[in-house]
Structures are given as structure tokens and as C-alpha cells.
């Protein structure tokens, strides 16, 4: 799936990936790829505007840590981010259920 098809869902995907635990940018991309079994093939650089946007909105916290010999900015879900993720999950289930109902119905 291309990056432009993910536009609009990327923030929720990033929140979902970070629900598994704090991670730096590259790790977020790797988790996204693994959890989608390679289905999400977006330009890796596009993850950073999303991370920064979520950090600015208070949904993520970030700090620089020394990980594997390199100074990395590690992101973690805040309480507000956890609430937002729960809301996004609920909206997505409702939305995808309705889309499946319409698209999956016989003509």
C-alpha cells in the first residue's frame, strides 16, 4: 500500500505502534512494516512529520536517549495519546464496519 493511501491514517497507525512501547523513528517504521507484514510501504521520511505533529499535540512525549551507541529521540504515548488511540480505534472499527457493509453487499 502506497504512502498517499495511508495519508489520514498515519497518525492513528503511529499511535497504535507506540502502544506496544516507546520507540525511535526507525523502530516505528520497522514495527509498522512488520505488523502490516510488509503491506505498508511508505517513504520512511514521512514518519517524522507525523511523530512531530503528535508530539506537538501532546499525544506523544519524546526525549533523546543513548540507544545502541547512538543518540536517538525516543517517543512514547502520553495519557492523552492513549485516550486518542482508543478513540481512533473505536472510530475505525465503526467506519470499516460500515464500508464493509456497503462494499461487501451484493449488487
Amino acid at each position, binding site marked *: 500500500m502506497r*504512502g498517499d493511501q495511508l495519508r489520514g491514517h498515519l497518525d492513528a497507525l503511529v499511535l497504535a505502534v507506540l502502544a506496544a512501547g516507546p520507540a525511535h523513528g526507525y523502530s516505528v517504521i520497522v514495527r509498522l512494516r512488520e505488523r502490516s507484514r510488509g503491506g505498508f510501504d*511508505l517513504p520512511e*521520511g514521512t514518519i517524522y512529520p507525523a511523530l512531530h505533529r503528535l508530539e506537538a499535540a501532546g499525544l506523544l512525549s519524546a526525549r533523546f536517549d543513548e540507544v545502541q551507541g*547512538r543518540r*536517538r529521540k525516543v517517543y512514547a504515548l502520553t495519557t492523552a495519546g492513549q485516550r486518542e488511540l482508543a478513540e481512533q480505534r473505536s472510530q475505525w472499527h465503526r467506519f470499516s464496519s460500515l464500508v464493509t457493509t456497503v462494499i461487501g453487499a451484493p449488487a
Partner: protein
Amino acid sequence: MRMPDEHGYVDDPIERYLDQLLVTLPGSPRQVRHTLAEVETHLLDATAQARTDGLDEFAARAAAVQRMGPVAGVADHPGLGLRLTRALRRRLVLAVLLIGGMGGVAVGIGGVIGWVVRALWGDNAVATPFPSGSYTAADCTRWLAGYPSARDCVTAMTADHANDFLQNAAGCGVLGVLGLGLYLWLRRRWSGAAVATALPRGSDDIVGAALAVVTAVVLLGQGVDAVVVTHANGAGAPFSLAVAALLAAAFFGRQAVRGLRRPIAASG
């Protein structure tokens, strides 16, 4: 191909990418530094992964950059190319100085060629007199005062016009040299500011070559017109400048080709 440039350096895909990112990222200096650090670490991680997958160092670094996607995607600013960042402003100043300086020097060279033409074939070869009736007796008196050995007003006027052309060309040449000097000074002063990546590689050379070619064509047209209409009177001036414009076009063309052929290669 990974050939070193004339200075013996090779260009690294990751370094080049970070340079481009530096001059396009919006935000405060701290935000820019943090994003650069994040992206650099990301690229090094991706390179290490690609190395594990069996790629050599250069291919791994290039693959990491390719996976990262366009710089505009990281900066999340679709109209980024139109933002006049400090680096872009500096690069534009350098481009104007280079093209303007070379243009001035080319006009100066045209003056030197014109000087040779005048020495060989006289004032009429580089200048034409005003049409009769378009100047006054006072003008004639002034021209004859400047050229007392001239046999008549038209001869003095032509010599005056030829001198004007040569003096103006020399003035342009001096300004061109000053412009190029300023260009070299500023280029050295800004060498660490990533200005070289603020515009696509070779863009100022291509603009310079295009301007020089257009100028040469126009001047050649004026020269041919002078040959046909005025029986070569004054044709030396446009032809001299056309030769200089072609030299400038050759210089910029060579620079552009060299710049575009220079590979983006890894150091590893």
C-alpha cells in the same frame, strides 16, 4: 560510477540528503537540529540493515536514502521549493554574481576583440556614425575637438563611437572581474552553509549557458544585419561581443556538463 571530483572528494548519498534536508526544513534551529539528528540516525540504521541484507556500503547508503523518500516528505512542506531560505538566498546571490560577473568579463573580452578589430580595420569596423541630419554643428565641434586629427565630422564621430564602445566594454570587464572576485570570496565564506544544495545541481550553469547562447545569437544577428545593411560598417562590435558570448556559453556549458556528470557517490 563512483569517481572522485576534481578535488578528490566523492559525494556521499546520506551527506547529500542531509544537506538538502538542512536547507529545506522549516522550524526553529533546535527543531531543525533535532530532526536532522533523527534522520541521520535513521539513515545509519537503515544502512546497517541493508548491509546485513548483503549490500555493499555504497549501495546500502543509497538504498537507505531511497527508502527515506523525498526531502519534502520529511519536511512535510509541499511548496518547499519556493521558500526563500537563507541558503537559497545565498545561492541565488552566488548565481547572480557568477552569471553577471562572467557576463561582464565576456563583454570585456568582446572589447579586447573589438580593439584588435579596430586596430586592423579602423574605427568604421566597430562603430557606425549617426545618420546625417541627426546631429548638430555643436556636436561636430565637440567631436572634432576630441579628435583634432580627424579629417571631418563623420570621421571624428565614428572614432568617438568606437572609443565609447571600447571604454564601455572595458568598464563592464572591470565590473565583471569585481563581481567574480566577490563571488569567489562569498563562496569561500559560505562554503560550510550548504548553499550548494539549495538549488538543483548545475542550475546556475545551465541558466548562464542559456543566457550566453541567446545573447550570442542576438549579437550574431546584429552583426549579420550590419554586414548586409551597412556593408560591414560597425559589424565588428556585435561580432566581437558574440564571440565573447560564445566563450561564456562554452564555459557555462562545460561547467554544467561536469556538474551533472559528477556522480553522487559514497565514501564507503
